[in-house]
């Protein structure tokens, strides 16, 4: 067979930037042979908002609200990463109650992010009813967020030096009660996800990357953990995680099914962490006053639902920062995604793409 004959058999599929399976614009140029992917090239930039640049114009307090808006899912965790960085620069001692409340909101974010993802994954392999059931439960998490923070997604509760809202005893009871209802809901769909024959058919052995590959490609979060890398930044004990204790959830198969199992088990882990944090909530103030301006440079990292986020902050002693650099988890997982795609069918591309839980707004900032 000549080379010319081989190339004519190839089809070029533009996957995105507008594609029904993608909530956000991400462009993958897929080269197919019949229905098998042989190559994939990403292109981003369709929703680049220049947030890093804007953060150099706003003052460091306003940046909390700006950076929170990088992501429409794990908003609180973005502001947490930023606040922890500034607090390290200004050597602020955050009161324990604030640290515990930060865990509560972080984990509520993780809960609804993983549920959102599970729904989208179900949609990617055409299981619409599962998608609807999962999102119905996600709504309950959002209700808890609104009841505690005053908004469904943009919580705006994290502040430099602590948190901006306290929880009353009634609210704590409400959250605990809500978590029970959410856990009951899990029973109605999680066994289906894990044991359903058709679901397993679509996930097991699809988009495999080995532990070695995941390490070398710099994969983070559930993608890395599904390939057997026990790496979860919550283990480093920022906020109150050090006192609550947790072990990273790991799986070793490195396929889409392993990624699903990791996230499903993390759902339970999040429930446990919120309950523990609420039970041990110390009675201290929720914030310390902030005096002066930050100076110096710092790297702040926290674990988002999609993996590790890195904030590099450089301050010069004025109100505005010199540089705010955000490396989001999806950005780190793109090389891993490109390694997963070749060799799989076109039908698996949406599943594999969603299995890294892409957040394109995060990626482009």
């Amino acid at each position, binding site marked *: 067979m000549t080379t010319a004959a081989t190339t004519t058999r190839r089809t070029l599929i533009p996957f995105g930037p507008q594609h029904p399976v993608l909530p956000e614009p991400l462009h993958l140029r897929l080269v197919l042979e019949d229905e098998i992917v042989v190559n994939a090239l990403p292109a981003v930039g369709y929703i680049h908002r220049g947030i890093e640049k804007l953060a150099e114009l*706003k003052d460091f*307090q*306003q940046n909390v609200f700006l950076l929170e808006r990088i992501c429409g899912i794990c908003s609180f965790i973005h502001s947490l990463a930023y606040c922890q960085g500034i607090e390290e620069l200004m050597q602020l001692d955050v009161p324990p109650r604030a640290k515990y409340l930060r865990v509560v909101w972080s984990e509520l974010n993780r809960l609804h992010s993983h549920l959102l993802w599970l729904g989208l994954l179900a949609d990617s392999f055409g299981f619409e009813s599962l998608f609807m*059931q999962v999102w*119905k439960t996600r709504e309950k998490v959002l209700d808890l967020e609104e*009841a505690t923070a*005053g908004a469904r997604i943009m919580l705006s509760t994290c502040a430099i030096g602590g948190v*901006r809202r306290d929880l009353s005893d009634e609210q704590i009871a409400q959250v605990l009660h809500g978590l029970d209802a959410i856990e009951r809901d899990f029973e109605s769909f999680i066994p289906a996800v894990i*044991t359903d*024959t058709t679901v397993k058919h679509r996930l097991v052995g699809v988009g495999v990357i080995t532990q070695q590959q995941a390490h070398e490609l710099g994969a983070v979060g559930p993608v890395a953990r599904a390939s057997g890398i026990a790496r979860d930044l919550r283990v480093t004990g920022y906020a109150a995680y050090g006192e609550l204790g947790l072990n990273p959830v790991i799986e070793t198969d490195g396929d889409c099914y392993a990624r699903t199992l990791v996230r499903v088990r993390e759902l339970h882990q999040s429930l446990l962490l919120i309950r523990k944090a609420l039970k041990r909530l110390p009675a201290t103030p929720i914030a310390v006053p902030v005096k002066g301006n930050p100076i110096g440079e710092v790297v702040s990292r926290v674990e988002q639902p999609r993996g590790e986020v890195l904030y590099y902050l450089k301050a010069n002693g004025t109100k505005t920062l010199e540089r705010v650099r955000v490396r989001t988890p999806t950005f780190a997982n793109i090389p891993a995604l490109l390694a997963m795609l070749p060799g799989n069918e076109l039908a698996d591309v949406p599943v594999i793409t969603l299995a890294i839980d892409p957040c394109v707004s995060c990626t482009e900032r």
Partner: protein
Amino acid sequence: MFPFVTTILRALRRGPATRRYPYEVRPPMAGSRGHLVNEPDTCIYCGLCVRRCPAGALAVTREPKSWTLDPYRCILCAYCVEVCPKKCLRMEPSHVRAAS
């Protein structure tokens, strides 16, 4: 083989979980940041809220006394409420459409 059947049947029995929005609106939760209001009687038009607003949604002039909010720009973060020295700004829980 099809573990989801029970869930489906339960959904059928319990009826829709959705609401016919916008005809049916859920009452807002207490403490929700729905929209921003100012009480002109207590306001001293100091302009602190304008300087702190991350979105540049506010404008204040001392003479003549005016306080204006651009609802299209407001991101409902309530930072202005926090810094207001007279506590005349507050967030109302009901959500309004920016265009109305």
